[in-house]
């Protein structure tokens, strides 16, 4: 449920770092808690994101949650397919359901995030 190669933050986003580009999405725990996702509101390419700041929103039938960036950098790609198929977030949150790609400023920020085991322990504690 929590792929080992990813990093996670306390707001339930995951990060996959490839070179200096980080792909960001929400974890299986987050999508399950939300229920059926009906809207994903994402920023535009070229915008800057900052660690801990909101970059968008994900909305289910019953609730809305802000998306917080686990890292700082410039957005180089957004997953526009989610506009027409927001349910992809529920169906495949670690792959097709990714949300933004960010050119990272400081790779150490990604390193400092939780690994899968730590994240699982964090959820167990929180739940």
């Amino acid at each position: 449920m929590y792929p080992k190669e990813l990093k996670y933050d306390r707001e339930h986003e995951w990060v996959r770092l490839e070179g200096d580009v980080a792909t960001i999405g929400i974890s299986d725990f987050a999508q399950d808690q939300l229920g059926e996702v009906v809207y994903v509101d994402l920023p535009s390419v070229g915008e800057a994101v900052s660690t801990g700041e909101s970059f968008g929103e994900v909305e289910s039938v019953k609730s809305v949650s802000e998306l917080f960036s686990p890292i700082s950098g410039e957005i180089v790609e957004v997953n526009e397919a989610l506009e027409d198929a927001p349910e992809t977030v529920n169906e495949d949150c670690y792959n097709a359901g990714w949300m933004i790609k960010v050119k990272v400023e400081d790779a150490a920020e990604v390193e400092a995030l939780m690994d899968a085991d730590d994240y699982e322990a964090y959820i167990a504690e929180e739940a």
Partner: protein
Amino acid sequence: MTEAGRMTPLYTEHVALGARMVDFAGWQMPVQYAGIIEEHNAVRSAVGIFDVSHMGEFRVFGFDARESLQRIITNDLDRISTLGSALYTVMCDEDGGIIDDLIVYHTGDLEYLIVANAANRQTDWDWITAHLPETVEIADESDRTALIAVQGPGALAVIGELAGEGWTPPDRFEIGEATLDSVPVLVARTGYTGEDGVEVFCHASQAAAIWRTLLSFPEVTPCGLGARDTLRLEMGYPLYGSDMDRGVDPVSAGLGWVAPKAKSGYIGAEAIARVRAEGPERKLVGLAVSEGVPRHGYPVLHGGEEVGKVASGTFSPTLGHGIATAYVPVALADPGTGLEVGIRRKVASAVVTKPPFVKTTSLSALKS
């Protein structure tokens, strides 16, 4: 009455089915099982069952029961002079403010059954008992009564199979008796989903058996409060606490039809007549929203100016976009009027739409 974490007789059934439980008006209730959209669609296309045992049931009886209730509710009990018929109504204070919306069933010659919202059970009880004369008896049957809503185009077929040959379903907005799986129950052809169906009143001790029997039908899906809310809002049915409260009169709430002009002498009648004469300042309208999900409390705008707030709002699984109700000035209440809804940092365009948002259901087929 303590309100913290009350459980209906079906609580353990919900937990066993893996429901996500939430606090609702002090009750532990299922918000969803498999998912709101799936449950919603099950009711629109097949059969869904809901535990609504948290609602209040009061039995009112005695020689003066009819006359006394006429003074308490806005709608006219003469509309249900036939035994077994039911009436949707509101109950107002002297200022015309809505205390609750209720269904009143005419269950005996001198007897009525009132179904009240869970959140207002105590308030309603206090209000009704304070306004009944001593000659009228009232009994709170809420705790010993379970209520299961069976809703959807296939609902009557399921109930009919359980009730056996020779059972005739009650007409729409009527209540009758049945024996389901050897359990005697009351079956009312009512519900709040816009689909044909029934609400089954049974003794609390029998609820789990009936619930399980209903679930043994492959076409029956257990549904939570989440789907109940999306279903009722697609029909534009108002919800107490969101669409109406003590600060709103029935005319402004679009419920003028439950306060007939010809009726007088009930609590709030003068205030309601005054609103009618002067015309309401604002009205509850439906809004179809282009993008994003409108939710309770979000601002409604006209030309950038805030003109009201969203009363109820959700994503419509049937239509695939946001729908809402909102109180807006009467000048902006005509269907087709373009408005906007502030959805956090964005402004979404909205069109005033006369409910129901979803026009074709098994219930609309029944009415036509």
